[in-house]
């Protein structure tokens, strides 16, 4: 590598450069800048307090709002690692919430814990079925992931409308509602769920060979198959996981409102999830993936949304700031930009050496 000539200075700068070259460097910088900006603008922003045994504060709200995009993006990240994409997750959110709420609506005793649990299981079950269907299209039929999941992205919302018969189903069930708005040991339930899923996935993916298999499939599916990786079933499972997590996200997101608005629940959330994965340093082309980066990405997303409110901007301008952060982080991490910077540095290095020699 030509870059090594530029690394011949003191070891301390090389450590700094390693940090700067880490995939998570720019996302973390973006997150810290955003939080500091909010903290300066609104002094109480960083405070977290206990009230009635529950955690309260702006940061807690951000963590709570991160849960939905985090759940979606964790599944998306695994799919992207295999070189695929799942565009259907937003529609899956709508479907699973519609199924869960329709069940509670039709049940005789809507308010009981049993009904709520059954609704949760049904919602998740439908989401898993959808994920299985996506995986079938991608692995067995060999359809490109973009198109395969586009089918349900377009049709899924129609299916959710069929389930709710075109109505916005509203129910009352306190146990179900608490999935989205309750607390466990003082921590908001969505945060507990999201962190639990993150820890579970991290352990499964990094403590077993699964993560490595996923990355090898993403880099070269055919080569991994030839070297003994069960590429088909592994890829299939990943779509099932993504579907299930999307269903969970739909229930967590929709539970506090208790209303299944099939047209709007999870609308364009798949794009947010993909953005979160990319912000976390994972490349859309597949291969290396960073589940930790997904957490940072999800926090960035909900911090942007919160920052718009704190800076007293109209909430409709949020997409604008998402665009700015997305462009800034991807351009900063762009290999092309880094290459040209390095070339410039090497050239400067060479000319300065030439001057010393002369």
């Amino acid at each position, binding site marked *: 590598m030509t870059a090594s000539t530029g690394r011949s200075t003191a070891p301390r700068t090389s450590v700094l450069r390693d940090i700067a070259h880490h995939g998570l460097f720019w996302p973390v910088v973006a997150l810290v800048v955003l939080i500091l900006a909010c903290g300066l603008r609104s002094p109480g922003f960083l405070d977290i307090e206990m009230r009635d045994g529950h955690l309260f504060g702006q940061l807690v709200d951000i963590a709570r709002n991160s849960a939905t995009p985090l759940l979606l993006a964790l599944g998306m990240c695994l799919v992207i690692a295999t070189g695929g*994409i799942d565009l259907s997750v937003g529609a899956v959110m709508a479907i699973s919430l519609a199924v869960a709420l329709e069940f509670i609506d039709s049940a005789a005793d809507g308010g009981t814990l049993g009904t709520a649990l059954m609704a949760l299981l049904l919602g998740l079950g439908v989401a898993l079925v959808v994920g299985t269907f996506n995986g079938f*299209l991608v692995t067995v*039929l*060999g*359809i*490109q992931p*973009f*198109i*395969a999941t*586009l*089918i*349900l*992205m*377009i*049709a*899924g*919302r*129609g*299916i959710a*409308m*069929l389930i709710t018969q*075109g109505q916005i189903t509203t129910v009352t069930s306190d146990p179900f509602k608490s999935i989205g708005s309750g607390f466990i040991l003082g921590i908001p339930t969505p945060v507990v769920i999201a962190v639990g899923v993150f820890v579970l996935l991290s352990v499964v993916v990094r403590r077993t060979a699964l993560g490595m298999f996923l990355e090898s499939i993403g880099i070269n*599916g*055919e080569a991994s198959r030839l070297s003994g990786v069960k590429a088909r079933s592994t890829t299939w499972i990943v779509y099932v996981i993504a579907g299930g997590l999307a269903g969970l996200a739909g229930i967590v997101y929709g539970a506090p409102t208790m209303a299944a608005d*099939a047209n709007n629940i999870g*609308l*364009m959330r798949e*794009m947010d999830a*993909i*953005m979160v994965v*990319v912000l976390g340093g994972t*490349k*859309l*082309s597949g291969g290396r993936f960073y589940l930790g980066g997904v957490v940072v990405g999800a926090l960035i997303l909900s911090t942007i949304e919160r920052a718009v409110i704190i800076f007293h901007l*109209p909430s*409709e*301008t*949020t*997409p*604008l*700031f*998402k*665009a*700015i952060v*997305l*462009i800034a982080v*991807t*351009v900063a991490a*762009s*290999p*092309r*930009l880094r290459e040209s910077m390095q070339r410039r540095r090497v050239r400067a290095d060479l000319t300065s050496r030439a001057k010393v020699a002369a």
Partner: protein
Amino acid sequence: MAHTDTARTTPSEPVSRPSSSPQGSAPGGPLARVRGAVGRMDRRFLPILGTLVTLVLMLVIGQARYSTDSTNFISMRLFSNLLVDNSYLLVLAIGMTFVILTGGIDLSVGAVVALVGLVIAQLLIAGAPLPLVLVVGVLVGTLCGLVIGILVQVFDIQPFIASLAVMFLARGLANVVSVQSLGITDEGFATIAGWGLQFGEGSGLWRINSSMLIALVMLAIAFYLLHYTRFGRTVYGLGAGDDGSAVKLMGLNGPRTRVLVYVISGTCAGIAGVLFAFYTRSGFNLTGIGMELDAIAAVVIGGTLLAGGVGFVLGTGAGVLVYGLIQVLIAREGLDSWWTRVFIGVVLLVFVVLQRVISVRRRS
């Protein structure tokens, strides 16, 4: 991916001959003869054949179910209405075809349509002259496309992410312009939007209007650009999946073309924004959510492979007609509107599975 590999072998016709001609000359019923004829045909046309079969099938179903003694379902009126209602989608899909042929994607077009509509409405309310307003409207789209092109070509960002960023950008800007629906009352604007030639009488009445003409002219221009120019060959070459090395070896300007396809798609989105404003006589920041997916679906139903390099812009035209016909059939059947999305999904599913089966057959 195996999918793209098989697609890429399509232009090499001679390879197909040994395997398909014995099949064609083999003794057998009419089915074998049809199979032989399909085998002898240039295989690039197979996907578009599927589109045409779908189109004819839907027309036949419509003709059988909705014709009365006095009026036929298949009529100039039907096609005229299809084009009037879907002219903006056709223009979007034409631009999208260029991008998809290079193996890219443009997710920004729906948001750009909303932004352009609002910019036009706001400028007209401010009293700017109409020609200037229309040009500025289209240029807003061009600029959005240029930003994507630069992000993709210069900074090596994947088209999906680059266009996603511009989608957020355009949607955010549209929200900044106005969060309310702005009506367009300008007289000149209404004159252009309402212009049309009428033919026939009574229930056979059909017309040609301005947005339909613009869309058809765009289709003709796109056809010429893709099939009769150096630029068009470069577009197909970039879709070969070799990162433009073949294009480079042939001495074609790959980098410039890659930027230009996004500029074309953005410009098409700008024009579509104008057409959509003609259609609705207003600008609204929530229009066009998911419109980019309609355009992508129309392109795919039109037989263009998302992997790039294979497809025809005329197929895209047929894809848009299929799309419009689904809506017509659902409406005639009296089903609720959400059935439309389910059916479009089903058609898309059947279509990609068929494409897949065809390409597997070709490989074996």
